[in-house]
């Protein structure tokens, strides 16, 4: 089928049907055949082009050279593009030039040797090249705008090729490459070791070859020190580092800014610490001074009672009891503060949160905070949580005491506290909610309620919620106040489960 089809097509028909221009040239360089596209492209009739020396179709300056190329081609004919990537130009009959890419194919019929030259108009390739040039120009502009310098460290020859920006920083005049030794000499001695470590890590073939390090460069001409951030990548050949290609950026201003900010931060931190310390001292002083003042007054009352003729044993008893209670109060405040300031190792264990809650309810009752009715909603068979049981118990007792005190002050008729213990599916944590039916908190109080030493209670030290929050966080959870319009205050806290489900 195929053979019979081809037999019916003349060579000339195929030749003329080709989309590219084709010229058949004999072994002495004369055109012997040209297809229709070639004739049109070069603006010749067949009669005009037939027998024409091929060199007549190229600019004069190429002709001599082409003679030689042609001779060597006939010695070693092969199918290949012509011109080794150089831009080729064909000469039309009217003398105008046209950019072309040319492919050469040897054809032999018995003793006769021909070369088929195929000409593609090179505009497309040129356009790609032009686009590449524009893109390179854009890159260069971007590089300049970003203040980037480019370097290429030839690892085998210990030479660095670099651009003008790099030379500027290093204070070198015009050399396009520099010895590695000279390159390193400008780097701040204190930064060389760190840079070396990064390079060594990057040239390890097991690494991804990425390189990034900041160091200082001292310009040998003016002694100006600049911070340089370098980023690059090692190229490997056969498992060996051969090149480090990278960019460098002057980050001196940024470093200066960073340093200033760091200093400011340090200063702020010091101020903050001083303020916290002074606040702490002031709070401790207040917490101790209050009971001391009461003890002093009670004692003088007792003394006065003993010295007076109208001795009232009831008052003496009340004064002494008051003095004892106040001494206890002072001691308790001290212990709470000390407990808060101690940073001991946190021992965690698995335990049932519902069980600890029941213990906390009993403790609250035992401490004189039992005047409420708990409304419990406890998830049955909830997984065990992980934390410090004692601390979690303390958090619960603190929250219950706060709730009771709030309701006492407001003298609410029904002293109920709703307590929910459940699994929060969203975050996969145990979630406890404690809601009282006291007066709740106004916006201003709510904002400050977790601050250390903030209190709304006359005898409170203002550490309860601060401690509770610190403890919750130490146990991997969160403690927060719900902002809502519901009556009473609603506190939430979370704890992680022992096993992730």
């Amino acid at each position: 089928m195929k053979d019979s089809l081809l037999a019916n097509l003349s060579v000339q028909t195929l030749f003329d049907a080709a989309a590219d221009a084709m010229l058949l040239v004999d072994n002495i360089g004369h055109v012997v055949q040209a297809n229709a596209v070639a004739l049109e492209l070069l603006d010749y009739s067949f009669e005009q082009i037939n027998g024409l020396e091929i060199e007549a179709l190229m600019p004069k300056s190429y002709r001599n050279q082409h003679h030689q190329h042609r001779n060597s081609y006939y010695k070693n004919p092969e199918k290949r593009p012509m011109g080794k990537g150089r831009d080729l130009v064909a000469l039309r009959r009217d003398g105008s030039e046209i950019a072309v890419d040319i492919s050469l194919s040897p054809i032999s019929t018995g003793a006769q040797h021909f070369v088929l030259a195929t000409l593609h108009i090179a505009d497309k390739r040129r356009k790609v090249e032009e686009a590449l040039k524009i893109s390179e120009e854009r890159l260069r502009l971007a590089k300049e705008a970003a203040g980037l310098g480019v370097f290429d460290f030839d690892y085998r020859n210990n030479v660095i090729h670099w651009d003008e920006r790099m030379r500027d920083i290093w204070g070198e005049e015009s050399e396009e490459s520099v010895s590695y030794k000279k390159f390193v000499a400008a780097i701040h001695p204190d930064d060389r070791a760190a840079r070396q470590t990064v390079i060594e890590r990057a040239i390890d073939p097991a690494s991804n070859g990425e390189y990034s390090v900041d160091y200082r460069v001292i310009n040998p001409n003016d002694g100006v020190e600049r911070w340089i951030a370098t980023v690059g990548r090692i190229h490997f050949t056969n498992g060996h580092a051969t090149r480090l290609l990278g960019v460098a950026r002057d980050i001196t201003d940024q470093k200066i800014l960073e340093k200033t900010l760091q200093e400011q931060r340090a200063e702020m931190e010091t101020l903050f610490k001083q303020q916290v310390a002074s606040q702490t001292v002031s709070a401790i002083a207040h917490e101790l001074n209050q009971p001391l003042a009461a003890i002093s007054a009670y004692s003088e009352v007792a003394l006065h009672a003993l010295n007076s003729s109208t001795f009232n044993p009831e008052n003496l008893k009340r004064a002494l009891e008051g003095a004892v209670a106040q001494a206890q109060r002072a001691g308790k405040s001290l212990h709470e503060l000390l407990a808060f300031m101690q940073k001991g190792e946190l021992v965690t264990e698995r335990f049932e949160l519902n069980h600890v809650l029941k213990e906390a309810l009993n403790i609250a009752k035992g401490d004189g905070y039992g005047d409420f009715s708990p409304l419990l909603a406890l998830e049955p068979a909830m997984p065990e949580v992980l934390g410090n049981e004692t601390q979690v118990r303390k958090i619960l007792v603190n929250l219950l005491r706060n709730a009771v005190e709030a309701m006492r002050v407001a003298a609410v008729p029904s002293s109920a506290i709703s307590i929910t213990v459940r699994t929060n599916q969203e975050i996969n944590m145990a979630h406890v909610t404690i809601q009282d039916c006291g007066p709740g908190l106004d916006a201003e109080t709510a904002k400050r309620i977790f601050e250390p030493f903030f209190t709304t209670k006359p005898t409170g030290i203002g550490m309860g919620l601060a401690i509770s929050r610190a403890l919750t966080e130490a146990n991997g959870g969160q403690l927060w106040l719900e902002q809502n319009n519901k009556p009473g205050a609603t506190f939430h806290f979370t704890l992680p489960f022992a096993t992730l489900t």
Partner: protein
Amino acid sequence: MSTEATIFIIDDDPAIRDSLTLMVVQEGFAVSTFESAEAFLESFQTERFGCAIVDIRMSGMDGMLLQEMLTKHHFQLPIIFLTGHGDIPMSVRAIKAGAVDFLTKPVTRERLMTSVRFALVESEKMLTERASHQSVQSHLAELTERERDVMALAVQGHSNKEIARLLGISHRTVEIHKSKVMHKTGATNLLDLARIAHEGEFKSIDKP
């Protein structure tokens, strides 16, 4: 002292209230305690003989603000401040605003009672002044318009003759008005009348 003195103790710490109450009661005074400045203001009546022992640092309205409120409403009650630490700028401010004393906790019985006694003297003085002011005011309120006119001109030093001419009334009528003014205000002479006019913030009328 016409009535028994009451010592008001305003402190948010129950132990301080309790211990100071025992102490003040031992001294024979009546005590009234409040856990906040707000609660005190709600129940306070003017013209009480006594003084207040007030904690500077209280949740809610603090001691300094309470002092401001009392002054604003012309409540005359001597205040003794108690403070946890000797804050000098604050004590200066409190004394300038009329506080009797500024005491640092713990305070001794002696120191506190000295202040309380001093404050009670102050309170008595305030009440006497207030009473006299009020009596003068009520006397002046009894005067007729014509009598006020005559009194105003008289305390300015005009003679009866001049007053008669200025008001366009007879010399005799001026004499009658003036004698009524002296009688109603209880003034013994013209100088005394001038004192009463000053104390009672008597406004002189515009000259016709």
